[in-house]
């Protein structure tokens, strides 16, 4: 037992740290490095200067070569560290997910109705499993039979349980809390949402996105140009004599010039982008989808649940003449007490806010539930009164003499985009309750921001035109399409795409699947059907359609971060030239005049070169927070964004290295190194 004690697992942080350090060095493998041409050049440079160090004849030059070698090596290490760090952040998230998957076993249903235990990894598409209360779901599937409460906190982080009924999808890793379900498995192991999510946040399944490929190509060519500049500089400078340039200095110049900053951080930016998506509880099936979300031109949004909070709310009592608001409110209150729907609850809340005296006695009686035939609900009280509330036409048929004002008020409510609900006591109509769709708070402002960014929002709803238009106006969407069916939505997407626009939408039903597949970004809801989840290229685990807006912002921020750091990287080079060029030719008497270019007043040639090189290395870890968190992003028009980022990253990128190199040179001076 003693050995078991000694073998106590390391704490999470320290094991992660160990892994991080290990990865940092594993990534130094030249074959891995080859995928990143910029840093590969630095690595080759390190080998060259190391060889020069070892073969140097004079101790003075050996020391210089050795210091350059160390700084170059640190530059490469910072780059691999950045990538390993971004991956380790993802891994922490993945670990949490993986834990829930680890032990799942499934009760495989046999043809005779009995079941056998089967390891989760052996599950295949089409198998049927039984899930009992307390079981962890072993794979993604669809409920065939039974209703039960599911704890999905393992993947959503949301503790409230979700009811699953036939047709609903279940996700591997979630836990059934009550009852039992018969589930048909829809995904082979290794391909479940959980697997995809783990692979994605870990960076294992990460493929370069189109924009990343394009940027890598450009960085590759830029690197090639600087290799060319430096390699030809040797012979050209030897025009002034055989010992004009020192190879170590040429390597240092090369490393300073090639875009190491962005080269080192590029993959970290991509990994962190996926993590940010995962962090808002969205599973993206590919990095490409996240990147595409930055390019979206048109957002197609549902009304119910997306723009409005899922349910209509009572906002006003409209009594018929001769009835007081209080009377109507009380009747509505009593009729709704047993009504647990959000609509019913909102009537209770509204009524209570209307009452003058807050405490009323709750009358006893027999609730009458809503049915599709009667289209009303209510209560038969013990005192013999019967109270009903429901569709206006149903109440009109119920009451003896429908007052003309009742229908007028109902029409007025409908005209304003609301839904009228009539209330009657003992076959006498009291008035109308106005039910209204409530636009989610903050949406109007966000839509305005999106408009500034050039994104058009279209509300597509199956509701009638009047309701749709009222909500559209209230939410501030750019266009509205009423009375559309899923086919209409698909046609709308195709029409927008024909104009060259990229379209994003959300959906949950099976009939949304074609549209989700057609859209460039299709965000499916986790509560939705399997078909919808398969069709979309992202799944929101919280099933909050408004999340689409967040996804778009993540996509944009990802692109901006890449652009900003690339610009910064290139802008930095200006100062490095002013440090290195006068220094590297200082040994040639005829070129002494070039010291006029030493505008930073760097003290010694070696000090100048080392300062530039150290700055070049240190800027990588300094920018890791920006790479991982993304640069600050505020929704604005393209022109404003460009101006702000050009100043923040381009202009500042020119200035900062002048200050940084000057400062490092002073510090080196303190140690007698410059």
């Amino acid at each position, binding site marked *: 037992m003693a050995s078991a004690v000694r073998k106590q697992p390391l704490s999470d942080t320290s094991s992660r740290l160990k892994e991080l350090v290990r990865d940092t060095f594993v990534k130094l493998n030249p074959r891995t490095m080859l995928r990143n041409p910029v840093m590969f050049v630095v690595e080759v440079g390190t080998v060259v200067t190391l060889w020069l160090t070892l073969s140097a004849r004079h101790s003075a030059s050996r020391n210089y070569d050795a210091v350059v070698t160390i700084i170059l090596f640190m530059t490469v290490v910072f780059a691999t560290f950045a990538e390993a760090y971004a991956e380790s952040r993802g891994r922490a998230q993945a670990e949490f997910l993986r834990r829930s998957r680890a032990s799942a076993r499934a009760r495989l249903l046999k043809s005779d109705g009995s079941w056998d235990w089967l390891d989760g990894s052996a599950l295949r598409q089409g198998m049927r499993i039984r899930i009992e209360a307390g079981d962890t779901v072993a794979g993604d599937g669809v409920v065939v039979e039974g209703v039960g409460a599911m704890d999905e906190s393992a993947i959503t982080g949301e503790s409230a349980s979700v009811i699953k009924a036939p047709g609903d999808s279940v996700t591997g890793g979630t836990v059934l809390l009550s009852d039992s379900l018969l589930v048909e498995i829809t995904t082979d192991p290794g391909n479940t949402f959980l697997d995809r999510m783990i692979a994605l946040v870990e960076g294992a399944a990460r493929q370069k996105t189109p924009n990343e490929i394009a940027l890598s190509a*450009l960085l590759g060519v830029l690197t090639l140009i600087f290799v060319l*500049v430096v390699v030809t500089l040797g012979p*050209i400078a030897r025009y002034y004599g055989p010992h004009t340039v020192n190879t170590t200095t040429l390597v240092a110049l090369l490393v300073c010039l090639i875009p190491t900053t962005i080269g080192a951080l590029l993959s970290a930016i991509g990994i962190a982008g996926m993590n940010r998506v995962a962090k808002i509880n969205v599973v993206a099936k590919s990095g490409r989808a996240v990147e595409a979300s930055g390019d979206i031109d048109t957002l197609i949004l549902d009304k119910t649940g997306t723009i409005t909070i899922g349910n209509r709310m009572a906002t006003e009592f409209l009594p018929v003449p001769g009835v007081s608001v209080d009377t109507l409110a009380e009747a509505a209150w009593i009729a709704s007490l047993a009504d647990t729907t959000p609509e019913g609850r909102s009537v209770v809340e509204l009524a209570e806010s209307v009452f003058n005296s807050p405490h009323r006695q709750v009358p006893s009686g027999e609730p009458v539930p809503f049915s599709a035939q009667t289209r009303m609900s209510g209560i038969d009280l013990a005192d013999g009164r019967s109270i009903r509330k429901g569709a206006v036409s149903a109440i009109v048929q119920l009451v003896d003499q429908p007052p003309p004002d009742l229908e007028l008020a109902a029409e007025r409510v409908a005209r304003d985009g609301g839904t009228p609900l009539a209330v009657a006591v003992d076959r006498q109509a009291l008035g109308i309750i106005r039910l209204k769709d409530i636009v989610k708070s903050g949406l109007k402002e966000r839509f305005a921001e999106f408009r500034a960014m050039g994104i058009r929002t279209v509300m597509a709803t199956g509701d009638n035109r009047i309701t749709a238009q009222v909500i559209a106006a209230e939410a501030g969407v750019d266009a509205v399409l009423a009375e559309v069916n899923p086919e209409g939505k698909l046609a709308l997407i195709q029409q927008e795409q024909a104009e060259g626009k990229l379209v994003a939408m959300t959906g949950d039903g099976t009939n949304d699947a074609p549209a989700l597949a057609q859209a460039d970004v299709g965000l499916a809801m986790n509560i939705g059907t399997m078909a919808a989840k398969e069709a979309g290229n992202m799944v929101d685990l919280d099933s909050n359609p408004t999340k689409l807006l967040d996804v778009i912002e993540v996509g944009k921020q990802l692109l901006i971060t890449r652009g900003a750091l690339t610009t910064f990287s290139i802008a930095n080079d*200006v100062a490095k030239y002013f440090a290195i060029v006068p220094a590297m030719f200082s040994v040639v008497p005829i070129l002494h005049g070039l010291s006029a*270019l030493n505008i930073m007043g760097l003290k010694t040639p070696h000090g100048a070169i080392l300062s530039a090189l150290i700055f070049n290395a240190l800027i990588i870890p300094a920018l890791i927070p920006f790479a991982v968190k993304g640069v600050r992003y505020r929704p604005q028009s393209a022109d404003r964004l460009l101006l702000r980022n*050009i100043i923040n990253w381009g202009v500042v990128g020119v200035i900062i290295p002048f200050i940084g190199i000057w400062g490092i040179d002073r510090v080196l001076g303190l140690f007698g190194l410059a």
Partner: protein
Amino acid sequence: MSISTMATWVVVIGGLLILCKPMGIYLYRVFTFQPTVLDRPLRPVENGIFRLLHVTRDSNMSAVEYGLAFVLTNMVWGIMAYTLLRIQGILPFNPEHFGNLNAGLSFNTAASFVTNTNWQAYSGENTMSYFSQFAVLQFLQFVTPASGAAAGLAFVRGLSGRQLGNFFVDLTLVLTRVLLPLSILFGLAFVALGVPDTLAPYLHVHTLAGQTQIIPRGPIAGWEAIEHLGQNGGGFTGANSANPLENPSALTNILQSIAMGLVPVAFFYMFGLFTGRKRLAWTLIAVAGTIFLAMLAMIYFPEMAGNPIINALGLSGHANMVGKELRFGMGGTSIFETSTMAFTTGSVVSAHDSFLPIPSLAMFLGMFLNMVFGGKGVGLLNMLMFVILTIFLMGLMVGRTPEFLGKKIEAKEVSLTSVAFLLHPLLILVGTALAVAIPAGIAGVFNPGPHGLSEVLYGFTSAAANNGSAMGGLGASLPFYEVALGIVVILGRYASIMAMLLVAESLLQKKAVPQTSGTMRTDTPLFWGVLLGSIVILNALTFFPVMALGPLAEHYLLMAHHVFG
């Protein structure tokens, strides 16, 4: 600044600005096959040519076909030119009985003229027969700028969402509708202003001092017209436009400066009409114009201030007039030299070797950038190459996949464009490094110190930029330079044009994305600044080290009053 300098500049720059709009509209109408003034006399001729070539006005080529047609046609011309120069001795119109050219010079000259570079490793007046001058070289001076313009047109068509067009149709129309009519106009003007145009032999005159002087002449006026209208730049004589017979007065100087810029600037405006974005065209004109003005200032002011060493001796408080023509003065000289470097013509009115380092820096700038309007079509192509690179680099910062004219710029376009960008420094730097590293190259360096290095660098830059002017002081007629520069002009011409044609085709095949407020706009003062900044920084990063070793080192030596023994 004197009145005459100011007047000269205002006439040239103002003239180009005023003319670019009508000229651009004319070009647009010609190349979209709309009715224009010269239809009646020229259409039948063109139709005959098209029948002969089995093409119609509306036929189209793919990027590869277009590029191949361009390269192969040029190759045929090159071989033809080479052959004719090699057998010049037996051909007619040779009153001075010049012999055959040797192989190296023939290759160098054919390569240089067929690529619209017009680098001259010879002096025309003692090398070329009249036949070689007008049937070989002047022929190339018409057709090669027309080829370049055609390539530019194909690129513009692709960007504006049209099919690329047909190389032979474009070539024909550039000749019949642009170069020939304008050449007749300018040629006659030059004749009227005193430029000779004759097939008679050189003049032998008895001078007052009792000596005999040979005055070379020939069909010069027509040559001058197309030399400048086509941004060719090869002089009829070695002295080029500094020769009073080529460029007799301040007036012809102004006319030649305008002739160089007329079509290139109009091409920018035409681009705006093709794409329906005139503001974009003006933005690009403003970017190129800003650099043009900067070059003009960098040439004029240091030259006016004079050489500090000579000034210190008290010999002269005046401008550095060494190597310059008094009849043009500093104002006329600087506007002509700025034009010739900006429009990559390469003709000269002064000795570039005698300029101070900062003005030579400006000349290098024109050739490094190669898009300060540049040669017609090709300059626009280079400008748009930088536009695409800039949009890709900066466009990410607006949070969208970068797009230009509604087309997304992705891996393929970025790769091709950046390779096209890479090619220019590659040719210049590798060529120069090779020249100073091997004895065959060093043998041609006649000046000590940084100036000698600048001369080599200038040679390769001029060749890669298809400019064709020489700084001088370089043994350009040595076999090494004849071959090396010949190869550089060819690669510099065709490789990048091919790459950019593929970019155009790739963009053409993409679906257009509508412009929204989320799109980075390319027609604003902000973009002017961004584009200008990117162009300057990208090129500075590439060329700063060699500039430091050449002109900058020389500049600081001059400031330190260093004199080479």
